[in-house]
């Protein structure tokens, strides 16, 4: 495995760059960071819409979430890549498509996690806040979400980690991130697929593990600081 890393590390790290588009681990990280950065706020909006007292709003978002959760991500990316440009009438790069599809897909899953978290907060908390005269939004922002998000942090961690791993589906619309690079390397090395994918596994493990550990650390720190642990 070490020879493979020694021999092919530039390809695994940056893909064709600078002789071509950026790829490899660098691209994976960029897509993942963008995916995480946008899916969290979007999922919050979806979750809030889903529990909102406005009937049509919660109905529409519920159906949206249902459909998105029912489609394999690969297919979602594929359709986004070919159908969205037809709808909006101008072409969209594979990179943008991937990030958007990933954000929408993850947001749908994340929204369900967050919704469950919000619904698990005792209604007394909302009542306490509202009865002091605070608005719905203030109550959500200052009272409910800070508690709900912390409670579901473990599930959110799961979702974040899968966002990172699922960037690999970008290959289908030629976003040539880490898994694609590994496939290229595999094609060059030819007879050692287990070793090549072993390297791939180690890299993903390092990235994902760092994320899940930092989130756990954050979880413990917040709990400590709120004297809950």
């Amino acid at each position: 495995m070490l020879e493979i890393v020694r021999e092919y590390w530039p390809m695994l790290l940056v893909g064709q760059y600078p002789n071509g588009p950026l790829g490899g681990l660098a691209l994976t990280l960029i897509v993942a960071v963008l995916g995480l950065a946008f899916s969290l706020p979007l999922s919050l909006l979806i979750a809030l819409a889903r529990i909102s007292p406005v009937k049509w709003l919660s109905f529409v978002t519920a159906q949206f979430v249902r459909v998105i959760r029912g489609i394999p991500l690969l297919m979602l990316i594929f359709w986004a890549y070919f159908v969205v440009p037809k709808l909006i009438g101008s072409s969209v790069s594979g990179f943008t498509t991937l990030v958007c599809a990933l954000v929408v897909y993850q947001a749908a899953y994340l929204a369900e996690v967050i919704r469950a978290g919000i619904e698990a907060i005792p209604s007394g908390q909302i009542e306490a806040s509202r009865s002091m005269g605070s608005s719905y939004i203030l109550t959500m922002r200052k009272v409910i979400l800070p508690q709900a998000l912390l409670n579901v942090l473990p599930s959110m961690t799961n979702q974040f980690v899968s966002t990172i791993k699922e960037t690999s589906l970008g290959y289908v619309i030629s976003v040539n991130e880490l898994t694609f690079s590994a496939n290229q390397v595999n094609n060059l090395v030819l007879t050692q697929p287990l070793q090549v994918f072993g390297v791939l596994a180690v890299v993903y493990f390092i990235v994902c593990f760092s994320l899940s550990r930092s989130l756990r650390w954050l979880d413990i720190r917040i709990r400590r600081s709120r004297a809950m642990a």
Partner: protein
Amino acid sequence: MYLLEAQYLYQMLGGMVTTIQLFIVSWVLAFSVALTLVVIRATELSVARWIVDAYVEYHRNVPLLVHVLFWYFGMPELLPESVRSWLYQHNAEMSLAAIALGLGAAAYIAEDIRSGLRAIPETQFEAARAMGANYLQGMRYVIIPQALRHAVPALIGRALLLFKNTSVTMAIGVAELTYQAREIENDTYRTFATYGAATAMYLAGAFLIMFIGARIHAYYAISGGRNA
């Protein structure tokens, strides 16, 4: 975009059947393993916690594809020759794929159930123990049934993902739905039609799972509500 001929749809239905079989077998496996993990973990012994944590972290942080390849190409090499060749004569792809998927999903399910467990007050366990129930009886009759109820929404999500993730096993030649779709696409180059049909089938399966899940959720909802 026009529709596919019956012959192709039939082929895809065959893939769908494989997908569903794979899903059911790996779900049952995943669920049993997850329950075992939860019970082990709940002992609060540090060795147990360490083992279960390692199991969960491995499966959570390594891509499923790699995990599937590992089970298909790596694991059987540890078996004696005769067992191996018997296995290869009997659809090894399918069984090894089910194992890989099942073990992977087990890690997530275990975490979901554990979250459900955290919602059960410790006093429930104490109440069972105070009546003379032993550790396993307390877990089996009192804690796990309640934890499962809390975990139902998370488990529905997990089932959906497992159903869709069965497609990863096409890398080792399991002829499931995506595999068949790719074959047909490659035979005809009618990409949109085939993938459209595949997407519709996945969606149908997913809706079925959501429907069953909602039923189970409703069935298990504990009546009585506010102070339970």
